[in-house]
């Protein structure tokens, strides 16, 4: 396709026809402030924040200065166009819009969860004025809980309609609407609805201000204290790219990280709230020995517990030892697991599937609108036009396990074989690396584990699995590991450690490494990165991948979507005074 050539602030840019000026600018690192525009949604053009000066060549080929500014989000690039983002026309237009936005906006920042990552704060600071001419009473709008995850503060809303468009064009539920008109415009639930949609939490992310906030994190932290760690959501085989936000090693929220090929800008609410098990009161914090005869037992240090396990394995002999891995282990852990236990007397445990869910946009009558194909493409994620998918498989790394341990080892038949062998008394020692939250072993498996004389369980929390064990080792949650998962579509993605393991708990990598060493196997250094290198060399399905390559770096374009918050120029106090003095005050 032919490219259109034009200039933004003097920088020569080429873009395909149909590109909007705003997208082209953001793609080339020129920041134009904007509220209503979102890359995955249709263009609304209502906030008027993105105004720029557009000069087009006249008949004589000379550029004419514009009489009024244009909105960058709804202006298509054109050959020879000159876009200016810092002329007096533009800066004055921005000041105007911000003044209007703030007249009815409450001074809520001290109690508002968005403060610190609020586009209204940021843009007011960077592009607005330090004073207001507004002397009247402010309008009051409703505050309500739209659903289990989302609370709405009407007074803070700037009516950008991102949330409304999200429920139409991504979630396809049309739960939110804009009611009233003029200054009384306000977002509300569509009649008779509750916003309990599985994607509801995303409106909190896309709301540029603190109007839609998370009920889960309400008033819990100030966002500037949060540390952000890139990771992968483990709750289904989609493998949404996420950020884990922690303060002092406590996980406070999960946010989606943009990846156009996996999750777009979104994640589902199950995944979003799926960090609670990390801090659950039942979390295992120490290792223990609980022999079946209850004669002795009790707490153990890590070294002692590893010695005990090694002893049990040695006593049982290769014939009598089985090992079970869960589909929540990282590829690196599975690789070490295979080096230690092979692929014969091993099986896979996993959480049972749920209903797969796909979401489609609702365009209604506008189906035949010619500008629609492009808008459709914006939100589209899957081949069939779906905007998001929650996979049926509720485990993050079944594909990785199948690739490393082999399909047979991961088939249900293999687990049945273990159960039968255990119930027939042929298994002397079983090692289970679970570390799966909310896992209930099926009845036959629980019986089989209870029938084995020495059952070692590495898990996160006390429960039926740990109850069936003779040796319990406190394992690590996914947020406490480095490594890679391979999602249901065969994409290998990296997760980073967001917090250390609590108490005595150890990662499965540490457990396997210590155990191998204790058993006298040559283990070598076992960093996740090194193990990944081995995997690439030895398992065909991983050939060609690199540790750096499996980390998707989200392109930085909006404060909420980037791995790092956008850096704002710091105004000196002198500049602030100058700014204040400059106006009528």
């Amino acid at each position, binding site marked *: 396709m032919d490219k259109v050539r034009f200039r933004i602030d003097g920088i020569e840019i080429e873009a395909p026809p149909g590109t909007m000026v705003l997208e082209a600018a953001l793609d080339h690192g020129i920041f134009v402030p904007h509220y209503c525009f979102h890359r995955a949604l249709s263009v609304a053009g*209502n906030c008027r924040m993105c105004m720029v000066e557009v000069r087009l060549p006249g008949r004589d080929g000379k550029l004419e200065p514009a009489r009024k500014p244009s909105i960058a989000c*709804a202006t298509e690039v054109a050959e020879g166009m000159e876009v200016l983002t810092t002329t007096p026309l533009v800066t004055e237009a921005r000041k105007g819009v911000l003044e209007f936005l703030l007249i009815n906006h409450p001074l809520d920042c001290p109690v508002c969860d968005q403060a610190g990552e609020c586009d209204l704060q940021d843009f007011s600071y960077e592009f607005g004025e330090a004073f207001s*001419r507004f002397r009247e009473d402010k309008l009051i709008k409703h505050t309500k809980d739209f659903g289990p995850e989302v609370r709405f503060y009407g007074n803070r809303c700037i009516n950008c309609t991102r949330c409304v468009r999200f429920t139409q064009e991504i979630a396809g539920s049309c739960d939110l609407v804009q009611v009233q008109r*003029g*200054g009384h415009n306000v977002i509300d639930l569509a009649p008779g609805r509750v916003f309990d949609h599985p994607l509801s939490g995303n409106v909190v992310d896309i709301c540029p201000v603190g109007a839609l906030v998370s009920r889960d994190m309400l008033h819990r932290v100030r966002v500037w204290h949060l540390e952000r760690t890139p990771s992968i959501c483990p709750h289904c085989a989609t493998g949404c790219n996420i950020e884990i936000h922690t303060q002092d090693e406590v996980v406070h929220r999960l946010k989606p990280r943009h990846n156009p090929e996996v999750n777009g800008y979104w994640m589902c609410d199950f995944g979003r709230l799926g960090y609670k098990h990390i801090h659950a009161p039942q979390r295992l914090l120490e290792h223990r020995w609980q022999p079946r005869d209850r004669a002795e037992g009790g707490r153990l240090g890590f070294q002692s517990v590893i010695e005990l396990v090694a002893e049990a394995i040695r006593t049982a002999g290769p014939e009598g030892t089985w090992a079970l891995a869960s589909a929540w282990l990282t590829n690196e852990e599975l690789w070490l697991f295979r080096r230690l236990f092979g692929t014969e007397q091993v099986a896979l445990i996993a959480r049972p599937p749920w209903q797969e869910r796909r979401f489609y946009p609702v365009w209604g*009558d506008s189906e035949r609108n010619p500008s629609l194909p492009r808008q459709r493409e914006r939100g589209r994620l899957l081949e069939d036009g779906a905007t998001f998918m929650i996979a049926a498989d509720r485990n993050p790394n079944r594909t990785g396990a199948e690739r490393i341990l082999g399909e047979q080892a991961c088939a249900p038949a293999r687990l049945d074989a273990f159960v039968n062998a255990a119930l027939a008394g042929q298994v002397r020692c079983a090692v289970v690396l679970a570390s799966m939250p909310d896992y209930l072993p099926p009845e036959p498996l629980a019986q089989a584990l209870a029938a084995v004389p020495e059952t070692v369980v590495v898990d996160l929390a006390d429960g039926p699995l740990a109850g069936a064990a003779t040796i319990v080792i406190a394992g690590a949650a996914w947020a406490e590991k480095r490594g890679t998962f391979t999602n249901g579509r065969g994409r290998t993605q990296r997760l980073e450690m967001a917090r250390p393991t609590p108490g005595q708990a150890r990662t499965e990598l540490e457990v396997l490494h210590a155990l191998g060493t204790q058993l006298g196997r040559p283990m070598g250094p076992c960093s996740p990165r090194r193990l990944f290198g081995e995997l690439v060399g030895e398992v065909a399905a991983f050939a060609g991948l690199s540790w750096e390559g499996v980390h998707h770096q989200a392109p930085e374009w909006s404060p909420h979507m980037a791995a790092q918050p956008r850096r704002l120029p710091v105004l000196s106090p002198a500049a602030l005074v100058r700014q204040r003095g400059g106006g009528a005050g």
Partner: protein
Amino acid sequence: MPLGYQRLVGAVQEAYERGLLGKGIFGIDGFDVEIDDPPRAPAPTSAAKRRGCSPRWRAAGATPSSSPLSPAVSGLFGCPTVVNNVVTIAYLPYIFGGFGRGGDAEAGIAWWRSHGTEKSPGLMPYSISGHVRAPGVYELPLGTRLGDMLELAGGWERPWKAVIPGGSSAKILRLPESLDVSMDFEGLMQAGTMLGSAGVIVMDETVCVVDALYNLLRFYAHESCGQCTPCREGTGWAEKIVARIEKGQGRMEDLDTLLGLADRAIGKTICVFAEAFCWPIQSCIALFREEFEAHIRERRCPLRAGPRAAAGERAVGAGAH
């Protein structure tokens, strides 16, 4: 039910009866046009603007569309769509169809040209309201002198003070100074205002311009669809300031604020609603500044105590168009 609504429903009914609406109209198979009962739900005025109509049809909410394409290129269902005033469409058969002239189109055009001025030929239904003895709709040639028009509408017992010549968003003119303007597109443009919807609102000396502006701004604050920031916030803000001035609680800097917010709204919204509510502000302050200042200085509406009390009636404020 309002008369206008009854007539609209009646006209739709009549069109069905004559086979102009319904299935296979004009005997063409598959040419179906249906009109539901006209909506009674109050859509904001801004939705009636050219850009507002097509999204309204798409049931996408009654708000003007920011699509860079004009409806004539891509409107209803993405097809080219003609959106015009009823007046324009109603005159078409007479001008180009030779309606009433035995189908002679040339005669129709000649007849049309025989009225009005060189640049603005033809007729225009002027809706004259306010301080005249016989308010109503007058179909007159374009270019009629304002003074003649007002005499035709019966004149008035007290001196006139101001006129809004083209619907509520047109800039206000002072009377009697402007009695000689020619009521056509060019004449009014020259006078610094516009013909607009040809709704002529006449005010006599008992009318308080601040009160009239407040009345207009109340209308605009109510009618903004509320999607664009400058219009959504600006309409309400301006209304509150002018209400305060009228109540005698104004400050001198309020006038600068009003003019400043108008500058910041004009040309920065999707439809021309920002212009519509700002032009009255700008023109009222420009032409009647002393009246605003008197309100602020005296901390009350000087007219309520003065001429209006003398006239013994509540002034007819500018009717909203």
